[in-house]
């Protein structure tokens, strides 16, 4: 057994009564890729924050390369050779790659000498790890995959021997993810240690050497990856057996419920985000829209649901035209049978500061049944919220609790309960399971399929290709604002991945 890069002994951390990390012991061998998996709220992020110096543990020791260290802040972590690539990149968007890499490590007030040195060092790192990046490119003009590479270079520039990656593939295409894994492999070959935090079991199986599973603040198991299985890991994460595949019968598509014709949407800067998109959505089918985040899916959903003006094109809901280029009104569309589960539940689908019952009527608050004279009928609103809480098993079952205090999965259930219980004809759903734990994913997927089986038309947008393939009856792939292909759900991941990267799409879409 080779020596340990990281050893955690009895790490304990509480926030008030919340025991976020409970007596965590972890051994990470030098020169390996070590995966850490767990549901949301299992304590992964807290543990990594302790390791990177954002928080201090209440008890326990951290040993780096066998030496006990005291990591008071991120600077101490960097000094100990730990680098972190955050889920949301910590880059200054309008700085160049070189400026970003130097940021915080400028060494003197006058930048010139530092720049020359940094440029040379960057060249060396690029060669050593095959991480090609143009040092003078501006960050905001780079694709996400490359931005992530800059984050890795930033850590290496600070002489990191241990690299922590927090959910690194969330924003990547399958091809970009593969490229990242190759880079990680190279880093490992050079003797670096990689800690990979993810909830995607497939990635764990693909590239880690060892994997540790966290559940409810505890480290429940560590396995050698080659000796475990996806099923075992899922069970360890959730604490019970999980159905990873949703059961679903044949679709029985009926009438067209939603028809999108030549829809073009521009963002506030005038950049075309949705480019001449047309498709039909029928009752009793789920159409999935696959694509890497930022290829126009969000804008498409927003235009259909009346939140964002379209530049041109037509949308027919139940055969009636919707004024998507003019005065389409989300409230009016709801009355016509459209329900919308937005991608961003924190800022759009919910008001986190509201109590649960207040969010349970968001968008439907106009309904006379919630009114009593001049005022809202708070009792009726809370009573209805309680029914939904029971039906969707929302926990804790308290309609008066502030929404921010629910977990991600339960927050998503609040939105789903609100939108599904209205018995809509058309349900459009963005990222149904983003930030949702495995147990709740199963529940949400079952509900979506139930909606289809009840004859609803479901439009599903997700960046999780597995989810799209598991739920959809037809898959449309979006790239650069266009629908570049339609496939059956049994299309291979490779085929869809190429479409998502714009490789097989029509020439003009690949611009």
């Amino acid at each position: 057994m080779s020596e340990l890069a990281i050893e955690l002994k009895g790490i304990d951390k509480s926030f008030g009564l919340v025991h976020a990390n409970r007596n965590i012991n972890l051994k990470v061998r030098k020169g390996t890729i070590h995966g850490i998996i767990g549901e949301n709220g299992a304590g992964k992020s807290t543990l990594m924050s302790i390791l990177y110096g954002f928080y201090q543990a209440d008890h326990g020791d951290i040993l780096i390369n066998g030496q006990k260290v005291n990591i008071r802040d991120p600077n101490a972590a960097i000094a100990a050779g730990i680098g972190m690539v955050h889920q949301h990149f910590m880059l200054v968007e309008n700085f160049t790659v070189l400026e970003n890499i130097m940021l915080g490590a400028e060494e003197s007030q006058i930048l010139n000498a530092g720049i020359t040195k940094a440029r040379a060092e960057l060249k060396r790192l690029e060669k050593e790890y095959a991480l090609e990046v143009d040092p003078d490119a501006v960050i905001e003009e780079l694709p996400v995959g490359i931005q992530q590479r800059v984050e890795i270079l930033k850590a290496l520039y600070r002489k990191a021997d241990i690299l922590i990656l927090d959910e690194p593939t969330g924003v990547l295409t399958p091809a970009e993810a593969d490229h990242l894994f190759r880079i990680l492999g190279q880093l490992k070959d050079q003797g670096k240690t990689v800690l990979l935090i993810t909830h995607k079991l497939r990635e764990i199986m693909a590239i880690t050497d060892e994997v540790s599973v966290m559940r409810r603040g505890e480290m429940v198991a560590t396995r050698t990856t080659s000796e475990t299985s996806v099923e075992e890991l899922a069970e360890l994460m959730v604490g019970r057996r999980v159905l990873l595949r949703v059961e679903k019968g044949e679709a029985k598509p009926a009438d067209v419920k939603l028809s999108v014709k030549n829809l073009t949407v521009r963002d506030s800067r005038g950049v075309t985000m949705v480019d001449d998109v047309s498709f039909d959505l029928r009752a009793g089918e789920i159409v999935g829209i696959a694509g890497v985040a930022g290829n126009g899916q969000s804008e498409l959903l927003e235009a259909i649901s009346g939140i964002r003006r379209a530049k041109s094109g037509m949308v027919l809901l139940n055969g009636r035209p919707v004024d998507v280029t003019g005065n389409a009104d989300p409230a009016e569309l709801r009355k016509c049978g459209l329900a919308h589960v937005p991608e961003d539940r924190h800022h759009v689908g919910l008001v986190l500061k509201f109590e649960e019952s207040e969010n349970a009527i968001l968008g439907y608050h106009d309904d006379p049944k919630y009114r009593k004279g001049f005022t809202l009928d708070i009792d009726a609103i809370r009573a209805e919220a309680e029914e939904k809480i029971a039906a969707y098993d929302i926990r804790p079952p308290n309609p008066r609790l502030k929404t921010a205090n629910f977990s991600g999965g339960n927050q998503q259930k609040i939105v789903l309960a609100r939108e599904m219980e209205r018995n809509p004809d058309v349900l459009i759903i963005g990222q149904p399971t983003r930030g949702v734990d495995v147990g709740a994913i199963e529940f949400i997927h079952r509900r979506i399929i139930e909606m289809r089986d009840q004859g609803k038309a479901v439009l599903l947008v997700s960046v999780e290709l597995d989810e799209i393939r598991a739920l959809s009856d037809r898959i449309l792939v979006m790239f650069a604002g266009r629908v570049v292909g339609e496939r059956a759900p049994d299309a291979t991941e490779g085929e869809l991945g190429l479409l998502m990267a714009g490789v097989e799409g029509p020439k003009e879409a690949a611009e």
Partner: protein
Amino acid sequence: MSVPYAKLPAWAEYGLIPLVNLAVAFLISGLVVLIVGESPLEAAYHMINGAFGRGEYIGFTLYYTTTFIFTGLAVAVAFHAGLFNIGGEGQAYVGGIGVALACLALDRTLPWYLVFPIAIVGAAFFGALWAMIPGWLQAKRGSHIVITTIMFNFIAASLMNYLLNKVFKPLGSMSLETRTFDAGGQLPKLDWLMSIFGLSVGNAPFNISFLLALVAAFGVWVLIWRTKLGYEMRTMGHSPAAARYAGIKEAKIIVITMMISGGLAGMMALNPIMGEQFRMQLEFVQGAGFVGIAVALMGRSHPAGIIPAALLFGMLYQGGAEISFEMPSISRDMIVIIQGLVILFAGALEHMFRPAITRLVIGLSPKARDVAATKGA
């Protein structure tokens, strides 16, 4: 990255933290008094005694309180919709037109209890009108409400100067004010209320608009937490994106919210015009619109917080006047410093002691720990 989340129990959130902030503000004020070479204890005595020592003093304190309840509510209503209405000063000033018109037209023919409702409507109407314009400009033209409401304070000042000079001033008078109203334009004092507690209101202008302020406070609570309009305002205030998603008409809510806010600010004019001076004078608002911002901040934009916050500022005004009267080396400006410190600690630095207090409370009280435990980290 999850952030450790701890919610304080209500008594700490709404009681302990404001009290600690206040205590620090007074401590530093004490230091200032000490530097001037006076005794802080004596100053504190005069402050408390001047505000509450006699029925008449209490009357003055509550008179100021009335004014600050109105302007505080005005700012709070706009806050809930995410709008920062700094124009309470101008709106209250222009609201005076409504009061003055009602009184000048009717004070000789109708009793006060008939003139009062008309004056209320007039004050609210002119205040709302003055706030509607910046609201409309933001809703339709995207002009930022903070900038426009500040501008409108200056415009209001000039406009009122003109109106008092050219329209309201009686012929031959030298001072910039309307004529004094007759009985119909004079609100009764709340003698009976004070006498319940065995106190006499004396010369203090503590009048019936205090009750109106309390009614307005209750009305604001109903509006914000119990009506559809309030629901839509709060949705927009917390998350404009969620409001758009819910189909809430942003422009409409902005204009209506500003009108309600301006109407409340305008109603402040009833207190000095109909309740104290019985005429409209130049600059009768005297900064109350700005104090309203501090009151709303300190009261957490909740009527139940605004009333005690208004009382606190009423006390500072009345007690402060008493200090500078009794202790000549402490000038009016010193009182402004003390008020400034209260605003600084209660409003701007509101979160300074929060982490320490949170640790303390959560360490001491098992119940508070349970509240904190509802959110996983």
